[in-house]
């Protein structure tokens, strides 16, 4: 399966807008939303069936059995995460608990146990030949890299014989992004022509090259700052990174999204531009031997 990952550094650069257009244009039979903190792709890819749901367990969390607790205070003193409060009964704050097990270790009466905790939910939509894998992390759950891996795994096992898949990546530059990157064939970075957008882009390019993944860039809302757009293009040329094109700012795009449509469902400037970006990207993705492959 050839996998195309779409990434953007900080959110809000139009990553999902572009991913949804790509899904439409390619008629992709497998796609996934790896933005497990704030998944949006399902809002615009119109799923008619109900998803199959599965709980996702993160690190276990401590629980204190107040019947057994003798209120000695050992757990509270030894917890490095200030997760145990003692107003009235001893209690674990599940949001602060990192599941390290120190309280369980020090408790003299075995009142503390680590219990598996649901940290999110995996969703799998199947409709005819199409498979869409997504997830939602629960509020206050910190580690999402593992869930990202699960989302991709779920897609792959449900669509084992599909030859092409599109993955809407996680925002940022941290662990979830690294988890999104692992095993994909190509990354398309959606860059925004702002100072912070440029610095995000550079960081992702760095990570992607470390992974030996083919990398390309397109610029969204390029006309909002021509100077920075040129900066991005020069930077990419200097680094030997392929440019897939420019997409203009387009208020029609917002309207399309708000109607639950992709930008290629209507006639608009950004939709036309995205089509060009799409065909260039496909060419690069399916080009044999080009770029670095791991």
């Amino acid at each position, binding site marked *: 399966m050839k996998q195309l990952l779409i990434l953007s550094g900080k*959110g809000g650069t139009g990553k999902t807008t572009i991913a949804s257009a790509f899904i439409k244009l390619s008629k992709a039979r497998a796609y996934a939303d790896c933005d497990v903190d704030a998944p949006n792709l399902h809002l615009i890819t119109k799923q008619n069936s109900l998803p199959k749901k599965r709980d996702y367990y993160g690190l276990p969390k401590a629980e204190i059995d107040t019947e057994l607790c003798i209120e000695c205070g050992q757990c509270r003193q030894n917890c490095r995460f200030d997760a145990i409060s003692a107003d009235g009964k001893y209690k674990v704050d599940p949001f602060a608990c990192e599941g390290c097990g120190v309280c369980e270790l020090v408790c003299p009466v075995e009142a503390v146990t680590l219990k598996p905790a649901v940290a999110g939910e995996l969703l799998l939509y199947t409709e005819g030949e199409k498979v869409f894998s997504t997830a939602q992390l629960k509020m206050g759950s*910190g580690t999402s890299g593992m869930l990202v891996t699960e989302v991709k795994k779920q897609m792959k096992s449900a669509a084992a014989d599909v030859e092409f898949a599109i993955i809407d990546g996680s925002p940022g530059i941290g662990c979830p992004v690294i988890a999104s990157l692992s095993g994909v064939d190509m990354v398309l970075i959606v860059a925004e022509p702002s100072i912070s957008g440029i610095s995000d882009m550079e960081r992702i390019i760095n990570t992607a090259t470390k992974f030996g993944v083919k990398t390309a860039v397109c610029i969204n809302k390029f006309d909002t700052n021509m100077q920075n757009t040129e900066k991005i293009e020069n930077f990419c040329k200097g680094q030997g990174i392929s440019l897939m094109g420019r997409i203009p700012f387009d208020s029609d795009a917002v309207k399309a999204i708000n109607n639950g449509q992709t930008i290629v469902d209507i006639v608009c400037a950004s939709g036309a531009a995205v089509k060009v970006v799409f065909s260039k990207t496909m060419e690069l993705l399916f080009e044999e031997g080009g770029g670095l492959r791991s």
Partner: protein
Amino acid sequence: MKIAVLSGKGGTGKTLVSVNLAAVAKTSTYIDCDVEEPNGHLFFKPKDIIEEEISVKIPKVDGNLCSGCRRCVEFCKFNALAYIKEKLIVFEDICHSCGGCILLCPEKALTEKEKVIGRVQKGTSEQVTVYTGILNPGEPSGIPIIKKLLDENEHERSKTIFIDCPPGSACIVMESIKDADYCILVAEPTLFGVHNLNMVYELVKLFNKPFGVVLNKCLDGENPSEKFCIEKGIRILGRIPFDNELGSLNSNAEIAVRKSEKYRTIFSSLLEDVKKEVHHETTSDS
């Protein structure tokens, strides 16, 4: 007075709102808690920077004392320890600094050592005191840095403090808003925006914080986020229009209220509204 600014996702204008509010408030404090990608300093370009390293405690092994019992390896929930060829290896960036292995080692072979995970910078930009938290890439948790940022400012309660939170609703966001007196949620006028707004809305409700919404990037026509607020009876604090002037100031990392009269007016009145709200909330609370 501590005001936290948050949004379900990055790029909604959280930094725009907190930076401009802090700048228009004149003598204020701006704290960038988005430690993975702090951007506020790009706008403020603070001067006279004082930097402090933040460290956590991780285990260090004394090979002469270690008997190879492996109790620590079995205990560590994060798999940060391995015992190979009669030697204990500590994986420093996997360790969550829980201290468990040290407590448990029967030979007292493990002791603590400090490991730097990031830094806190303090500087000034005109009359605004700017704090930036920076987490070194690859560190498991930025929470110790956020704790430090917010503790530092305990004594400055008299000033208005603006906290630029990390995006999302993870535990690191909870830490950032824990002591806030008021929360401002920033939302975009799209279907995505509503979905992201709903997440932080749930979060502030859970923490019982008084809050209001700022609608950013407003265009003519329908605004699903506005509709959401009306349906849920959420107070709308203000609307920031989408226009090219603001867009280009912002993308060049300029502070709009310092450059344009128009935005000075918009953000001053937003600040007044927020202050009134906070006042109202704190007096009706007690």
